[in-house]
């Protein structure tokens, strides 16, 4: 089974700081991590390989430092890793990003399954993976909990708001994983050491001669950022005080009742 997993390097959003004047991310000192949902996607891919055999290839689009998450994926058990990188790819929105990734996946050859996380914790759009499927004309199933192969048939469980759908589909297919999908495995020391020395080839614009450059980068992005700002918080709350928890409770419920909130 040929399995491709798309992963993204993201800043740890719990540690993020914003420059209040320039409204840009202060990257210094903020740890970069593999998008947590992509780790679930990788685990889904590795477990498919464990069960059915095959090869797990990870790809990531980003600057050279994104090789760190590719190495992490190798240390967890991925067989090959590619970095999709070029100046021409910079400033891409979800449309352009998914187009570039779809072209890189095409270059890697035939696939049975493409996997990604349900969303990245920095952009939070959840659009890139299903958009890759659309650029490739592939069937897709988002938010899957697991999938099983039966010949060229796929049985997947998919989490929707109301419950779990059991879905029948066929390979090739693109799926996105969620936190509930699995518990990602740990890297082994041996693989970790090997991953440090592993060759991570780059896929650049020059490697995609058939791709349409007008669909890439800032110019190829239908959406553009007009302005950014930090959310304003103005503390104007009323402090409820009292000598005992009972007094505090009485004061709060009293205020809610007076305001007809309760």
């Amino acid at each position, binding site marked *: 089974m040929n399995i491709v997993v798309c992963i993204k390097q993201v800043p740890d959003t719990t540690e993020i700081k914003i420059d209040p004047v320039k409204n840009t991310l202060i990257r210094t000192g903020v740890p970069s991590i593999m998008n947590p949902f992509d780790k679930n996607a990788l685990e889904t891919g590795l477990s498919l390989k464990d069960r059915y055999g095959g090869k797990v290839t990870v790809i990531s689009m980003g600057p050279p430092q994104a090789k760190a998450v590719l190495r992490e994926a190798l240390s967890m058990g991925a067989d090959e890793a590619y970095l999709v990188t070029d100046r021409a790819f910079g400033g891409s929105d979800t449309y352009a990003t998914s187009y570039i990734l779809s072209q890189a996946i095409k270059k890697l050859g035939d696939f049975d399954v493409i996997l990604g996380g349900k969303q990245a914790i920095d952009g939070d759009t959840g659009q890139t993976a299903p958009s890759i499927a659309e650029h490739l004309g592939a069937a897709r199933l988002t938010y899957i909990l697991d999938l099983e192969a039966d010949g060229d048939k796929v049985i997947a469980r998919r989490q929707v708001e109301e419950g779990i759908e059991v879905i029948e589909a066929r390979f090739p297919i693109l799926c996105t994983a969620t936190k509930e999908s699995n518990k990602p495995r740990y890297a082994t020391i041996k693989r970790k050491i090997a991953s440090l020395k592993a060759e991570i080839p780059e896929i650049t614009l020059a490697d995609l001669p058939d791709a349409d450059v007008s669909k890439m980068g800032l110019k190829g992005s239908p959406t553009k950022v007009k302005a*950014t700002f930090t959310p304003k918080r103005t503390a104007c709350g009323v402090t409820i005080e009292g000598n005992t928890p009972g007094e505090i409770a009485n004061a709060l419920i009293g205020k809610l009742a007076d305001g007809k909130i309760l």
Partner: protein
Amino acid sequence: MSFEAWKDVWVFVECFKDQPKSVGLELLGQGRKLAEGLKQDLCAVVIGKDTKDAVKAAGEYGADKIYVVEGAEYEDYSADAYGNVFLKLCEKYQPNTILVGATVNGRDLGSKIAVSLRTGLTADCTALSVDEETGNVVWERPAFGGNLYAQILCSETRPQMGTCRPGAFKKPEKNPDNKPVVIREEISTPAQEIRTKVIDFIKACEDNDLRLDEAEIIVSGGRGMKSAENFSVLKELADALCGTVGCSRAAVDAGWMPQSKQVGQTGATVTPKIYFACGISGAVQHVAGMSESGTIIAINKDETAPIFEVADYCIVGDLFEVVPALVKELKARQQG
């Protein structure tokens, strides 16, 4: 660029088992605002096996026109079948703007339409307005876990598209006298073109809890809860108020609560009448999902916790003392 040919604001009224989900009706309120700014009509798109209830609701919540496509193949969502319908409708009627709920299926469908039409899709918008001069919708959305907000434009292509989370907006006032024009289109999708088929459905286990997006009162706990068992303290308060229990990401990461109860940027967006934040520090990630609640009450031992910056009522204290006291007080008043 002239977009004269592209007219009207469309709202996808998503259904589950032929019942309209709340988010589509919420978006009709936002769609009306955009339609007024663009001086165009507000249209609902309803796809399903039996669309009668959804069509009725779309009318009551203000649609001027309703495009309806019915067929047995639309009983369950599939990107192939729903995408086929939506793209054929777009080709025929050329909408200016499309709003879709940021549900599991909505995000998927939105991506499919946007890529096929080579246009822009902005996810999880929290505020929408129209720049009347250009006719561009200004899509406002949080990024980086709510640490930063961005205004996004899709100025060179139409339709311009966006998704909004369930609960991000309130439903508009119901108007039972609204008389929409209902346009039925015959669009079928051959079975062999639907590559994913729902063969079974397992209903989410009924834990008898109200869903976060349906509750008028939410009592949430965070890192300060210290254990899964301690959430029973919050449950008592939620029960006393006929509300439900929620939590922050810290509580999910610690394994104390399921992700379905998580409020915040990577969880649910909620706008209840009253939101209790107990032992929640108030990381932007969490605040992005609850700051539009009616009344926010924060209980935290740390008086410098950022949650107090968004709270209407601030209680600096131990939640394990204050919450039980609140339950006692409520019970005393209910009996009195």
